[in-house]
């Protein structure tokens, strides 16, 4: 099956083409089935290939498709690399992708752009698979930009709404800022190593100057910052919630935004070799985590809360990457994919039940009305908050333990982040599902549990969120850590844990205790005292206002980038281009013209004058030749 790994991206591509060309002509059911089955087929191939890889000793498999770009020494084949890392990502993408496709057939059922939605979604999966399967940076970059495009199309899916379009455009452009860094990084890799194939360059990295390695690592990280919404390029992700909820689950939580993590893990050699780069990654990661978590505290839009939570969790992953815990970060990507997809889909189910309402202040008391959604979301919330033995606990704990051995300050910030996470997640849960219903009567009447096509993925994901932890059980418990073992081949420079078992136990206990106490605090606040978020912005205290408005980061960017760009552009056009440069050009013309009009005075049309001047001229020349001699 490994030889046929190209089938994995091929199926979604076929699904995309079929829906793209015939989607409008066929029924919604058929259109949805084609799209879902395409992903299911990919998933089956991925599973088979995965099993084969696990039993094989050949961990790096290269599958050549065709030769793509050749330019002198730069040879870029269209080539796939199937190794433990990509095999895991394939499973996540196709597995969760399939569930979300199934969910979407229910969620999008009444939308007029039904087949268009699945066209985009299949295309997205195709590009995402290219991203993780590519055997060189450029194929990854193809997927990288491709998923950006699909993200653009899906965020702006309801294209009549200007705000949504703006969000889509913002996502694309901010991603492109990162992409430029990524592209320059790729070029620097080529110039340094003479190749950009994963299988050729990493072994040579040791002999390259540290400054170059740092530059490469940082440039790649710029790309990762854009795609994975890290400071300061994160503001597009919360806005991206404009897209349909399944999109938020698939693209903006489970898969695309983890591409940044993927690329850092893929290039882990560079980061292990460069302290500057890895420190940068860790610091940016933890700051993003903390920053986004605080914003999440006061949001009222259910999807925005989850979006900031995603940013924050991604920050945590980068913290893990920065401290060299690559396999832990991948582990967290996996568990995060489970529970965050679950939470988004659950939120979608809530929104569906509420008839499109996203404001948690208008909800309340939904636990009895939509039971499956409530229970699955509860499980997801527990998982993200880090309560054992749910999956999130294990992955988060691994990252924090590694951080502790690296730097106590980073660890402390990470701890605070996870406490904040537990708080705002339970805040959301309590406000949405408990207390009194605060919406309109029509909404209350409308409340209903979602169809099976939507609850089925919730149940599967909830199960995975609960048991996902077995993929990476703590080694100091004496249990096998499959995740760590699996990625052994991929991570070239090892970074073994040096903490004593005693410390690890203490850290773990501390994490659990703090999460539990924060949840209790949230419980007293929102369940006992029934505190509700302020109805109007004016009721907020000044510091709350700052957080509520996301620290005015968008406004800040507006002032320092967008407005100056527009202003400079206008100056360029109106003044520099039209006045100065074109002015000079026209000035030359005008000068010639005015000289002409002076000289023209001599041409008065009097023949006698012409003749006299001619004779004078001849006489003058003759005299001149005599005199000069």
């Amino acid at each position, binding site marked *: 099956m490994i030889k046929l790994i190209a089938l994995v991206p091929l199926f979604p591509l076929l699904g995309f083409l079929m829906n793209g060309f015939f989607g409008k002509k066929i029924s919604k059911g058929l259109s949805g089935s084609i799209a879902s089955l395409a992903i299911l087929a990919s998933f089956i191939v991925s599973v088979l290939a995965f099993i084969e890889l696990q039993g094989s000793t050949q961990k790096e498999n290269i599958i050549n498709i065709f030769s793509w770009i050749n330019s002198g020494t730069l040879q870029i084949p269209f080539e796939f690399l199937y190794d433990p890392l990509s095999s895991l990502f394939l499973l996540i993408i196709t597995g969760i992708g399939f569930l979300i496709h199934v969910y979407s057939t229910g969620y999008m059922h009444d939308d007029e752009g039904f087949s268009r939605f699945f066209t985009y979604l299949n295309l997205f999966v195709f590009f995402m698979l290219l991203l993780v399967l590519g055997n060189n940076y450029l194929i990854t970059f193809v997927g990288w930009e491709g998923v950006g495009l699909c993200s653009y199309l899906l965020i702006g899916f309801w294209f009549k709404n200007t705000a949504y379009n703006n969000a889509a455009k913002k996502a694309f452009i901010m991603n492109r800022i990162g992409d430029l860094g990524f592209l320059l990084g790729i070029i620097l890799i080529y110039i340094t190593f003479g190749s950009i194939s994963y299988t050729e360059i990493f072994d040579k990295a040791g002999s390259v100057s540290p400054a170059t390695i740092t530059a490469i690592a940082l440039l790649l990280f710029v790309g990762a910052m854009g795609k994975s919404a890290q400071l300061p390029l994160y503001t597009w992700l919360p806005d991206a919630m404009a897209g349909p909820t399944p999109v938020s689950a698939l693209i903006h939580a489970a898969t695309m935004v983890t591409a940044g993590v993927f690329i850092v893990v893929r290039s882990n050699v560079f980061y292990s070799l460069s302290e500057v780069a890895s420190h940068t990654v860790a610091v940016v990661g933890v700051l993003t985590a903390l920053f986004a978590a605080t914003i999440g505290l006061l949001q009222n839009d259910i999807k925005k809360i989850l979006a900031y939570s995603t940013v924050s969790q991604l920050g945590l992953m980068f913290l893990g990457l920065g401290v060299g815990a690559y396999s832990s970060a991948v582990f967290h990507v996996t568990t995060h994919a489970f529970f965050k997809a679950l939470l988004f889909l659950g939120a979608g189910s809530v929104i569906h039940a509420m008839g499109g309402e996203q404001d948690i202040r208008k909800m309340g008391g939904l636990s009895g009305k939509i039971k499956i959604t409530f229970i699955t979301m509860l499980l997801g919330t527990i998982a993200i908050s880090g309560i054992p033995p749910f999956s999130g606990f294990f992955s988060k704990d691994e990252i924090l333990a590694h951080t502790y051995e690296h730097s106590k300050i980073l660890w402390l910030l990470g701890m605070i982040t996870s406490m904040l996470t537990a708080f705002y997640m339970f805040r959301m849960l309590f406000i949405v599902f408990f207390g009194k219903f605060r919406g309109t009567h029509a909404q209350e009447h409308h409340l209903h549990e979602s169809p099976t096509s939507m609850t089925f993925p919730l149940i599967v994901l909830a199960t995975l969120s609960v048991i996902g932890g077995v993929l990476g059980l703590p080694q100091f418990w004496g249990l096998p850590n499959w995740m760590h073992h699996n990625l052994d081949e991929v991570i070239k420079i090892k970074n073994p844990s040096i903490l004593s078992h005693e410390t690890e136990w203490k850290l773990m206990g501390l994490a659990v205790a703090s999460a539990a106490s924060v949840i209790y605090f949230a419980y007293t606040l929102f369940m006992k005292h029934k505190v509700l978020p302020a109805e109007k912005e004016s009721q907020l205290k000044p510091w709350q206002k700052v957080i509520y408005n996301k620290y005015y980061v968008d406004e800040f960017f507006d002032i320092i980038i967008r407005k100056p760009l527009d202003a400079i552009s206008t100056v360029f056009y109106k003044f520099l281009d039209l006045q100065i440069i074109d002015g000079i050009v026209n000035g030359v013309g005008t000068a010639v013209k005015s000289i002409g009009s002076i000289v023209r005075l001599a041409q008065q049309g009097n*023949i006698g004058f012409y*003749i006299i001047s001619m004779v004078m001229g001849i006489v003058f020349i003759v005299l001149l030749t005599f005199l000069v001699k």
Partner: protein
Amino acid sequence: MINGISINYYLLLSTVLFIIGAVGVMARRNSIIIFMCIELMLNAVNLLLVSFSTLHNDASGQVFVFFIMAVAAAEVAVGLAILSMIYRNVKSIDTDLLSNLKK
């Protein structure tokens, strides 16, 4: 030289003729007179050519003169035709009135 007349006299005569012609062209406004003055200048040159031709015993100077005379004859025909056309259109052959090109 011919009958002992020095070349200088020929030169002098030719120069005088040429200057008369040139001044006439410059000073007069009547097209016919200007035309005659041009002929005068041509003949001054012819005279010079013939003189030097004899001086150097070289026939080519005289050949030139024949050419010039032939061309001048043709030129007179064309020139006078133009003048008569001008007269027909402008009712005058005063060159100062012919400044339409200026516009």
